[in-house]
């Protein structure tokens, strides 16, 4: 998994040199050499891990870290999804706080940007000094798995959000709901974070767990003959929620139901307002993509039948919710994968707001397609 790859390469970038220690007596000269050294560290090639001198404050911190680790062996590792365990191992192998921060920032940088449509109060995490938004939706390829997206205006908070997104995405709601909040102490970031930021982290986790549970409840409901409004679902199914979370469930906010599959307009629209021209959506997708991308090759396949019966599809009785899109276009040249997907989503905004739930996208430039 991608996280482990980053793990192995960045672990080697850690250096603990005595010169990193601040000189306590005078200010000017030593501090500037510290700065120069730290600057070169950021650009340096992988350097081997050195053991720390005993008397340094960094050694003291490492010692505290070990103490904390021992204290917290009581955190049940089996409750943590494997991806999260990988991430935890990564952070534990990086004792120096500054390097942990760098690692955190790298995670944040890898987080894909969140569609501004989801930067609403319903997605906002409370208790954060910065702004954080979180979104949960079912994996189009695996109905039991929950996927997350998140964003923040603060780089460190975005890093924390990324940890959770990468650590929890792909796991089923039952596993996500059981993740104990105190795993955050295992990261060793806790002592590097202010209490308010920590609270934000825990609140992020809670919100993600709530949203995952909500998806689970709704998918369990699709066995019913008529679609039930998510709002009532949250109140009538509290017992089910309680059993999952071990009795610690909190009130799921009513609006979170509308974020199933992240389509915030879905609950607002009346179910009868969906278009009823069968097969029309596929035609419209092809039309829009042809107009916007002038592709050399374009394949659009309706795979809604694969997802029939799971959360969010309730009410869309005529399918047309999930599509595979394969497109080759010169428009993608020079654009990252994220930008390409963004381009396609932008072209299909109207569809997304009227019942299209998910796209599985294969977007290549002509040169990539012929060499691939």
């Amino acid at each position, binding site marked *: 998994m991608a996280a482990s790859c980053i793990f192995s390469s960045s672990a080697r970038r850690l250096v603990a040199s005595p010169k990193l*220690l*601040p000189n*306590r007596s*005078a*200010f*000017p000269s030593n*501090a*500037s050499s510290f*700065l120069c050294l*730290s*600057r070169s560290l*950021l*650009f340096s090639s992988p350097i081997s891990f050195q053991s720390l001198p005993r008397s340094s*404050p*960094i050694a*003291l*911190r490492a010692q505290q870290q070990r103490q904390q680790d021992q204290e917290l062996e009581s955190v049940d590792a089996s409750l943590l999804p494997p991806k999260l365990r990988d991430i935890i191992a990564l952070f534990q192998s990086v004792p120096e*706080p*500054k390097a942990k*921060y*760098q690692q955190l*920032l*790298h995670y*944040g*940088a890898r987080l894909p940007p969140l569609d501004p449509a989801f930067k609403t109060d319903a997605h906002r995490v409370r208790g954060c*000094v*910065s*702004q954080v938004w979180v979104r949960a939706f079912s994996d189009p390829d695996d109905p039991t798995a929950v996927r997350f997206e998140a964003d923040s*205006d*603060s*780089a*460190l*908070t975005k890093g924390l959000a990324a940890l959770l997104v990468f650590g929890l995405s792909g796991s089923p709601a039952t596993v996500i709901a059981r993740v104990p909040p105190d795993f955050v102490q295992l990261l060793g970031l806790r002592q*590097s*974070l*202010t209490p308010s*930021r920590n609270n934000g982290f825990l609140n992020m986790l809670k919100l993600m767990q709530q949203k995952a549970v909500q998806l689970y409840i709704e998918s369990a409901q699709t066995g019913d003959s008529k679609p039930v409004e998510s709002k009532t679902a949250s109140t009538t199914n509290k017992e089910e929620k309680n059993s999952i979370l071990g009795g610690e469930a909190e009130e799921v906010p009513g609006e979170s139901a509308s974020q199933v599959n992240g389509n915030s307009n879905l609950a607002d629209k009346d179910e009868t307002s969906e278009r009823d021209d069968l097969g029309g959506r596929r035609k419209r997708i092809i039309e829009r993509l042809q107009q916007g991308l002038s592709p050399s090759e374009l394949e659009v396949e309706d795979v809604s039948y694969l997802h029939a019966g799971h959360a969010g599809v309730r009410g869309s009785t005529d399918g047309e919710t999930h599509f595979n899109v394969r497109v080759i276009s010169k428009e993608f040249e020079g654009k990252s994968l994220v930008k390409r997907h963004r381009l396609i989503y932008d072209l299909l905004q109207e569809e997304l707001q009227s019942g299209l739930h998910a796209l599985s996208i294969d977007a290549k430039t002509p040169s990539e397609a012929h060499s691939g």
Partner: protein
Amino acid sequence: MAASLCHFPPAVSSSSSLFVGSKSRSLLLAVSPFKHFPAKPSLSPSRPWTRSYAVSNDAAAAAAAFSVASPSDPRESPSLGEITRPDFPILHQAVNGFNLVYFDNAATSQKPSAVIKALSEYYELYNSNVHRGVHYLSAKATDAYEEARNKVANFVNAADRREIIFTRNATEAINLVAYSWGVFNLRPGDEIVLTIAEHHSSIVPWQIVAKKTGAVLKYVELTKEVPDLDQFKGLLSKNTKLVVAHHVSNVLGSVLPIDEIVDWSHKVGAKVLVDACQSVPHMVVDVQKLNVDFLVASSHKMCGPTGAGFLYGKINLLSSMPPFLGGGEMITDVFQDYSTYAEPPSRFEAGTPAIAEAIGLGAAIDYLSSIGMEKIHNYEKELSEYLYYQLSSVPNIHIYGPAPSNTVRRAALCSFNVDNIHPTDIATFLDEQHGVAVRSGHHCAQPLHRALGVNASARASLYFYNTKEEVDTFIRALKDTIEFFTTTA
């Protein structure tokens, strides 16, 4: 606009203050590209900046006489910061492995040993309830408590000691005015004028009272990141009953001309409530000279303990106001279905007060007075300019509020933002990797931040025990922090 300085009582003009003044100008010339000041021959040639602050009174005198050497210049006498630091035990510690640089004084100040000692002495030697008993300990406690009231009255030059009411903090003092004077005197359509830069504690109580009474809030907006005084004059009308204004802004660092504001307000028949939380600790504030109707301040921002603050109100105003909280102490006689109330200040001090804390505040005032508020003020002027110009040298930074100059005063605090880096990231990294304590957020001034167009800012705020060396450390740390976030992200 002419930002008038705080009012110094007619003090002996010592040659020392002139000496300091010229030193600071040459200092300024050396460190900043600004050419506001006329070129004066530097009193210490070929030095990047002079740290000397030689004044001839009290605590500084002894140290100055010894010519305590600093690392860089054995001839220069130490700054006020260097002299007073030993009095503050909390400053001498390492945080996250680095020497603590405490730059969050606008949130709360640190306490000298003298104040801490006063608190423990109270509890060790003469703790007893005040105003109630006749025995020895209670008499001693009462004397000390009332002596503290005298000290506060003298400190702000109140005409009458009964004009000082002890509260839990400045916020409670403002609520006292709101619920007692406000609810009693405001009618539908009456207007309350505030600035957009007010602290939440100056805004929210008035929102509540306006809802109760039908009064209307009007806000003075910003021009060039300071309150627009022309707009303020325009907002005043015969409907204005109260003006609520800060003396020094805890975000912008700007100083309002309170004496002029009071003049204009009184002409239309409005009362004036001044939030002096950021001014009383840092400069001489004379309530008679300013002629304010109400003034509030907190003990914990002026080297005193938390849990104490005070309201100053003109005695005729206070005498006409109904009680705020009811209970023991504020009554004369209590019957079953009614009670008669005491005169101010007791009328507004229900229940057992924070006795130790009030005495602690008195001890803080003693400490500050022993240094001299003028001296503190002048030193902070130097610090303020140094901080501002050093911060200005950081690329992509925006500092809110006015630039200091001959006519424009700035408090020794700067709220700022760096392009593309969230202030919380900056504050976290400064703390974790450098031991520098600054604040990030909206500093209890959300309307102000909206007016400035930002969600949050970082703020470094200094007090007289901070030094220029600490400012240097902060600037280095800030540059390192910015480097980290621009290269790693």
